[in-house]
């Protein structure tokens, strides 16, 4: 736990430095308007990253989230074209998210396949379904009220997606760090066998997480659709990498059992501000991605280096 506190401290420092440099470059940077705008541009990824945090702490991974976002968007467009009113299509698409998550959960918890394999398959599967539904078309012309949900502020300066983010963050914060369920998530991530030998219903916890992950991804897909007012087969293509980057950079161990939502929030803020700062400094998008990638490598590397350095300085501690 102490390691994590230190990690979060490091993130805080990086964030502060980024903000100071960015403010020096542009007086507009620290305005509420700009910060909301920053969030708004990546908000769907951020929402999915929150849920992904729990999945990874549980020792699993869901690679199919971005494809599920795409599938949700395309299913919505397809239903809309068929003449289903948007107000009816929304719950149908959310149900599809639950179903897709349950499908992942089935293969992982009932059949016992690794989540890496199952969700990799569904990364392809969900995307394929999305493309089949809309083919090469772009679908637009959604009702005004729907597009407004994605674009207009609905509470003070905050648009719906930011509210969803805030509510989800608080809910998951309580679930992960205060509830019995969250405790089980950590224990399973630490060792699924220890959990099983302690009477924890391991498959149930895992299944719930994957179902929730599918649901949140479909919700994010809908929010994306409302924000850009259009649907295509490649909606959210490749987003899973950004999402997983945010989580790992937040100090969540890819092996499970370690990490906090606060760390992930900090890493989200860093990624957003860093990208904005680089844009202000006229650094190209590709290079920006490179910098974020470098950060990710460091985030995985540094704790490991520190740990192995510590081990080698303590003779005998490596013995079993």
């Amino acid at each position, binding site marked *: *736990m102490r390691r994590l506190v230190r990690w979060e401290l490091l993130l805080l420092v990086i964030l502060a430095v980024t903000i100071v440099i960015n403010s020096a470059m542009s007086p507009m940077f620290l305005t509420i308007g700009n910060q909301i705008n920053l969030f708004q541009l990546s908000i769907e990824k951020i929402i999915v990253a929150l849920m992904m945090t729990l999945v990874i702490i549980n020792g699993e991974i869901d690679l199919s989230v971005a494809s599920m976002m795409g599938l949700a968007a395309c299913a919505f467009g397809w239903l809309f074209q068929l003449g289903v009113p948007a107000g009816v299509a929304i719950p149908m698409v959310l149900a599809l998210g639950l179903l897709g998550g349950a499908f992942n959960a089935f293969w992982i918890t009932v059949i016992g396949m690794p989540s890496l394999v199952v969700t990799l398959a569904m990364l392809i599967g969900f995307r394929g379904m999305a493309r089949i539904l809309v083919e090469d078309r772009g679908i637009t012309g959604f009702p005004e009220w729907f597009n407004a949900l994605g674009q207009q502020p609905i509470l003070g300066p905050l648009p719906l997606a930011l509210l969803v983010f805030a509510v989800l963050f608080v809910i998951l914060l*309580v679930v992960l760090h*205060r*509830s*019995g*369920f969250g*405790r*089980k998530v*950590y*224990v399973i991530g*630490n*060792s699924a*066998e*220890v*959990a*099983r*030998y*302690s*009477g*924890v*219903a391991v498959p149930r916890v895992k299944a719930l997480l994957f179902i929730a992950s599918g649901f949140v991804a479909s919700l994010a897909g809908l929010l994306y659709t409302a924000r850009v007012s259009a649907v295509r087969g490649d909606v959210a293509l490749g987003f899973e990498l950004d999402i997983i980057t945010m989580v790992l950079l937040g100090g969540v161990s890819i092996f499970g*059992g*370690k990490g906090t939502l606060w760390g992930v929030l900090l890493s989200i803020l860093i990624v957003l501000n860093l990208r904005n700062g680089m844009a202000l400094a006229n650094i190209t998008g590709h290079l920006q991605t490179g910098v974020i990638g470098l950060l990710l490598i460091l985030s995985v590397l540094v704790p490991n280096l520190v740990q192995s350095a510590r081990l080698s300085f303590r003779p*005998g501690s490596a*013995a079993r």
Partner: protein
Amino acid sequence: MPEPVLAPPVLTLAGVAKSFALTAALADVSLELMPGEIHALVGENGAGKSTLIKIMTGVHQPDEGTIRLAGTAVTITDTQAAQRLGIAAIYQEPMVFPDLDVAENIFISHRDQGLLMDWRRLHEAASSQIARLGVTLDVRRAASGLTLAEQQTVEIARAISLDVKVLIMDEPTASLSAHEVARLMAIARTLKDQGVAVLYITHRLEEVFELADRVTVLRDGRHISTRPITEVTPDALVRDMVGRAVDHFVPKAAAGPHGELVLRVRGLAREGVFTGVGFDLHAGEVLCFSGLVGSRRTDIGLALFGIQPATTGTIELDGRAVLIESPEAAMRHGIAYVSEDRRKLGLAMALPITANISLASLRRLLGKLGLIDRRAELAMAEKHKERLNIRTHSVALEVGKLSGGNQQKVMLAKWLETEPRLLIFDEPTRGIDVGAKTEVHAIINDLAAQGVAIIVISSDLPEVMALADRVLVMREGRQMGIFAIEDATPEGIMSLATGERPADAA
């Protein structure tokens, strides 16, 4: 079988000692292996056999003592060095590469093959190695289709292909059928005739008497005796293994009357694992499961706790038949299982003491919204810290940072918190120091006095004698008998466990 008088020993260990942390695994052990001899090595679990093998194969370095190979002092730095010196070992679980064929497996450690494989030569060479063992086996078969016994044959062929002088066989027959055992013994004899020194480790005394020329007994990491097989009787061997002047045992005072019948098990079996297990257990009674490694004691515990449910037989709790198909079900019935493997099965090492203690009884700490009452959780941990004397400056510490004995207490605390009626301990004092061991024993006695029904699975005979009211002896998945503690002697338990005495004698 008299020894050849003049042949010098091929391998000599003199005064070998090895300690891990504070425990001495081996102290002043000497052993001579003659060319062309089968030398049996026997001893209870934990007698130091494995450590000795690991020293001979270069896995561990001795703290003291010398190793001589054909008279020359050698240092065996690692397993490859052992191989170069002509020392090889095969184990109960053979190591073969399933996707390679038999011939490739045999020559896997040879490096002089050049760039291209000469398959014909490889297969011919492999066939001749197999033939040397006096068996037949198609060297073109994939290793994945081989039986365990055939895989062992491949391992032995691999060893002799490296010009082996000393072959260590570590409980090679533990999972073999009678027919396969006979075949393996024939191979051992063939190697002996070819001048190889075979060190044969086994728990089965009948194999010792059938096969060995000499037999060495280890106990508590010390060399007890080395004798020609013609000069030793099974009884004498068991006495050497159990050792410890028998009056050192402090058997429990004959148990007073126990409480109600808690557990009644009849005809319990899990296919292919154990069979024919039946016993009664009363409140306040301690029943110990004794037996050697591989006797399947732990599997009975796992069946009672629902990890590997039994396939036939009945379990009655308080006179009612119950089905236990998951740990959750077992816990609902008031059963707790304290695992032998703290690291893998017992504790979440990276989580704090508090979270580990509350894990099995989390439900009681949850409020209306499913949130954990942290104050109550802390109080729970502090209570057990006091009661079990867990030595730590803070219960917020990661469990992984505690000593083995304190980890054991945390695991105990976790299960005590569930207030079990039936508590199963699996090797409750393995790998912890003497002080903590005494404390754990006191806790177990305390719990029994409070009326908890207790099963202790233990390889440690003195522990069994100190804790048990009754002893159930297992051998190779079969229940050999149950002793009341008044009638139990270490020798009696051991001779049932090794199969020296048949089941019906109990």
